């Protein structure tokens, strides 16, 4: 072994010890936070943390406070975006999970002590209950390693051929403006993250934007070629940064796998029934599809919320912030009236209707204009009332 590698190996050993000590300290400190914060307080606390940098953070470990759990992985539990950055390292995820379990134990112990004090029979927390809640909590975390996410993003980026080159006539005109928007937004993110954002302009006259895993961001040139649309460009970029920091693409991918494995037994039951009741399998497929679609919609709404919070750090004048959000809302299509559906008279018609709906409704849809407007109004009010 060379001297250099020996030094490196010794260094790693000391570093591992230090890291374990720091890890335990951080986890214990996270578990020691208030056992049952109300959602309002949790949100406010978290915003405070985000403004000043996360409180429960060492140079190596960042803990996400898990406030809610769900039986499904394909669910967005915090649409109002209390945390701009999701844990991105295995150690972060593990620490978050340990902190959650420790908090659950502490809460159960607290209830037990209170019961004894008040003369009620104490109930011991069951191990199975704890394991179940930790399992559910694990579903809300993204365990995909960052290296895998970067690979996924790179591959996906390679397929994009509509990119404006930086060194041509139009590239020289529009990239400085796009870069300036990105720099301004990123400078307001104090939370630790490992993303190296890469911004590209797409040769489109439209005013859309795209994010891919690993930090790839794309803005349509149509957002940049007129000052009229700069406010929307700012919102669009914030929304796409949020998709990356929330790790939406990889979380969706992981959640689909997690949920499909979990429902194995249920699938078996459904398969045994399918011969006699074909409607059962269609209903099952529809439920699965609806869950996925809702998840996708909610992730979009969550990114809108994160975009508003991110912009609120850059645009301090609240009226101007409102105008920026409106610039996005006003460019959305007018709400479509709901299509009337003919009533089904027989089981056969119901079955046909179900099949038609499964095939003809998109799996991945965006929230409609009304959903986006209502969500942004709510977040804007939250920002105003928090005095941020």
């Amino acid at each position, binding site marked *: 072994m060379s001297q250099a590698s020996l030094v490196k190996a010794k260094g790693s050993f000391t570093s591992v010890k230090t890291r374990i000590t720091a890890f335990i300290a951080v986890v214990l400190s996270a578990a020691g936070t208030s056992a049952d914060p109300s959602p309002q307080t949790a949100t406010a606390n978290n915003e405070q943390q985000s403004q000043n940098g996360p409180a429960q953070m060492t140079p190596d470990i960042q803990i996400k406070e898990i406030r809610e759990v769900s039986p499904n992985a394909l669910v967005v539990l915090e649409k109002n975006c209390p945390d701009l950055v999701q844990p991105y390292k295995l150690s972060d995820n593990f620490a978050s999970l340990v902190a959650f379990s420790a908090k659950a134990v502490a809460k159960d112990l607290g209830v037990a002590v209170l019961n004894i004090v008040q003369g009620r029979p104490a109930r011991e927390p069951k191990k199975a209950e704890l394991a179940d809640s930790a399992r559910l909590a694990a579903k809300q975390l993204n365990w995909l390693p960052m290296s895998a996410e970067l690979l996924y993003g790179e591959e996906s980026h390679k397929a994009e051929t509509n990119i404006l080159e930086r060194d041509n006539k139009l590239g020289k005109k529009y990239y400085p403006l796009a870069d300036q928007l990105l720099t301004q937004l990123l400078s307001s993110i104090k939370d630790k993250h490992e993303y190296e954002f890469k911004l590209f302009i797409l*040769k489109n006259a439209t005013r859309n934007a*795209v994010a*891919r895993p690993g930090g790839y961001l794309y803005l349509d040139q149509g957002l940049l070629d007129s000052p009229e649309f700069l406010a929307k460009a700012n919102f669009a970029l914030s929304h*796409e940064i949020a998709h990356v920091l929330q790790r*939406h693409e990889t979380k969706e991918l992981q959640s689909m796998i997690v949920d499909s494995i979990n429902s194995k037994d249920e699938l078996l039951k459904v398969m045994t029934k399918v011969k006699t009741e074909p409607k059962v399998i269609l209903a099952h497929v529809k439920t699965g599809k609806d869950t996925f679609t809702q998840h996708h919609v909610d992730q979009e709404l969550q990114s809108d919320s994160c975009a508003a919070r991110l912009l609120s750090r850059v645009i301090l004048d609240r009226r101007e912030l409102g105008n920026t959000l409106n610039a996005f809302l006003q460019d959305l299509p007018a709400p479509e009236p709901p299509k009337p559906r003919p009533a089904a008279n027989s089981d056969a018609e119901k079955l046909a209707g179900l099949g038609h709906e499964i095939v003809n409704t998109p799996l991945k849809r965006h929230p409609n204009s009304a959903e986006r407007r209502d969500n942004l109004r709510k977040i804007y009010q939250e920002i105003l009332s928090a005095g941020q």
Partner: protein
Amino acid sequence: MDKRIPDWLVVAVFSLAAVAYAGDECVGLSNILKDAPRKVSFFEIVASAVKTDSEGAGCSSLTSVMDKVIHRSRISGRRLENEKPLNITDAEANLAVALRTPAILARLEKLKQEVPDEKVRLYLEAAILDEEGYYNARELRIQQLMEKIK
């Protein structure tokens, strides 16, 4: 003899050329146009776009248009909103603006004189409009090309 190019060949050549572009082998729009007068077939013109050893100006535009023609669309990633369909009125207005620019008009006129095949011309026109930043007009030309090769 009917000198029209069969549609299956158009699609096949577009696809082959698209594969070749992936290896940075494009010679560029200006070189294709420079050689255009002596070109007699669509295949030769498109094939010239995938030769090696060239400066490569305009390759990005040729590639972008080719990708759109063969529907290698962008399906991955998270979009801010749903894609909107092409507004033909806007696209025609965008083309009119492009045609009022003397340099662009000259390039398109040159194409009209030197490239007899309408499909090839539409393809190259779309690439020129892409290069000049008239994207709605480019989409219009691509849509017209797609109708021709249906």
